[in-house]
């Protein structure tokens, strides 16, 4: 009797084990298949629309003449300016927090603050940019206002990634430099920064690649504009690739959906190459450091 019960419970346990395993495999397949479906759906719709003309033409109400050049140029401007603002600012903040800050309430307040800023929805940054840069600083709906908004958006990400890179530099390196009589800044500049640099750079590029796909804050900053020129200065009005894609998606004619998919293909290509550069730089510097 007892043996029978044990056998039965062994059987149910085996069945349960199979069920749990099957569930876990199914869930991971759902994620992977969704990714494949998303990429396949986009490429299938977009590739027929992808051409040199698409990359060099401006916005047009005739789908077969419409192109993405203004949005592509706008994205490059935004990313360039954002990188120029956010990289020095983010790295400096991380250096202060890791190398200089003493343990007091203000330091821990800054840390808590950065963690919370990372969780603020991106469209709220757009509202901040609208009130602060577009209106109060009178920058208008310009590239400058957009880039400053993006800078504030990705700053927490850059700071957190840089902090991790700086923290991974062994303590002994710093102590060795101090023992030779180096000042705090000499230690930071000559020892910590070079060691942490690949990690900082990788984190920054990944943060920038998030910014390049971000549409919500720039909707608030630039509104719906039909830009038919390549911006030549930081105070020009602009559009970016995600905004142009959004614009095409919301138009009812099916041809514009094709254009949206082609735009997505270009956007994903840009993202992929940025990520490849990040990986390349990291590997190169890591070899050198050795």
């Amino acid at each position: 009797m007892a043996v029978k019960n044990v056998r039965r419970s062994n059987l149910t346990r085996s069945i349960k084990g199979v069920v749990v395993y099957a569930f876990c495999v199914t869930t991971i397949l759902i994620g992977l298949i969704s990714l494949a479906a998303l990429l396949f759906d986009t490429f299938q719709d977009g590739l027929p629309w992808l051409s040199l003309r698409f990359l060099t033409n401006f916005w047009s109400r005739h789908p077969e003449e419409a192109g993405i050049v203004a949005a592509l140029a706008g994205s490059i401007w935004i990313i360039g300016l954002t990188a120029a603002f956010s990289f020095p600012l983010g790295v400096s903040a991380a250096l202060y927090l890791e190398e200089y800050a003493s343990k007091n309430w203000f330091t821990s307040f800054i840390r808590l603050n950065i963690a919370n800023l990372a969780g603020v929805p991106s469209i709220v940054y757009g509202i901040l940019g609208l009130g602060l840069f577009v209106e109060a600083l009178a920058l208008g709906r310009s590239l400058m206002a957009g880039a400053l908004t993006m800078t504030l958006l990705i700053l927490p990400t850059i700071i957190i990634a840089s902090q991790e890179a700086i923290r991974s530099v062994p303590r002994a390196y710093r102590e060795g430099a101090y023992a030779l009589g180096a000042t705090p800044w000499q230690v930071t500049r000559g020892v910590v920064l070079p060691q942490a640099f690949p990690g900082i750079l990788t984190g920054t590029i990944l943060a920038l690649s998030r910014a390049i796909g971000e549409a919500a804050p720039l909707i608030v900053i630039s509104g719906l504009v039909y830009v038919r020129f390549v911006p030549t200065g930081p105070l020009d009005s602009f559009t970016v690739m995600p905004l142009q894609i959004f614009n095409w998606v919301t138009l009812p004619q099916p041809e514009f959906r094709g254009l949206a998919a082609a735009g997505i293909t270009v956007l994903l290509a840009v993202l992929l190459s940025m990520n490849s550069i990040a990986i390349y730089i990291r590997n190169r510097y890591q070899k050198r450091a050795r």
Partner: protein
Amino acid sequence: MKSKSRAKAKKTTRKIKEKIIERLLFASATVSVITTLAILGVLLFEAIGFFRQVSIIEFFTGTKWTPLIQPQHFGVIPLIWGTILVTTIALGVAAPVGLGSAIFLSEYAPDKLRRIVKPVLELLAGVPTVVYGYFALTFITPFLKQNVFLEMIVFNALSAGLVMGIMIIPMISSLSEDAMLAVPQSFREGAYALGARKHEVALRVVIPSALSGIVASFILAISRAIGETMIVSIAGGSTARLTLNPLESIQTMTAYIAQISLGEAPFGSLEYRTIFSVGLTLFLMTLAVNLFGQWVAKRYWKRY
């Protein structure tokens, strides 16, 4: 004598330089504090202007949101409801899928497979949200309309919620897996020594031990879903409505802000000002969720 004083001067300039650099780095670190103050300042300043014209009680308790049509009603509850509905659907997808994936990666998958599958799954987090919106509108909605819900409206809460669920899968799976990997191997070995099977170890030892990390990952995912804009703008519709039916068109707080920003209300008008009062509501909601998440992570954090 001369060289001595020169050395001294050099030392003082170096000291001054050090002090300046430290101040500069400190100033960079305070930018984050200034950002928070600026967010609060902008939102509160403009929202107070709005609440001079619309009663704050009507705003937070009203159940009709029609700022763009007469008669105007400014009750934010339908927008909050739209956000909650879409977030619930998203979590309904992402919680089981993310948790199952995390168990698979940390307990079942051989190391080689894990190293390939994990980064591929994390690609989902790097896809721009406008792409998810496109996917919801051009793939998920037509698929559901043809095969499951024939009477479904093109812009609906279900498609937006499902796709948002896909978007937040990696957030749950990666963070939960990290929490599971932090559970000491000796816990598992102890259970095996008592005769436990693999699934029993996973469900009764690993998950309870990693629970704080798992719950924190859910909360982070919820916060991300509340603040997501593009998917709901593209696929969720623009009708603020108190409905339990996910096949209907709805509007979230974020989608409303985007709609007004796209120029549907004249600059500076009362309708235009609503983006700040809705923005303030959105900001406070995500802040509350984030602080709760940090509290959970800290309160139940175990160091093994």
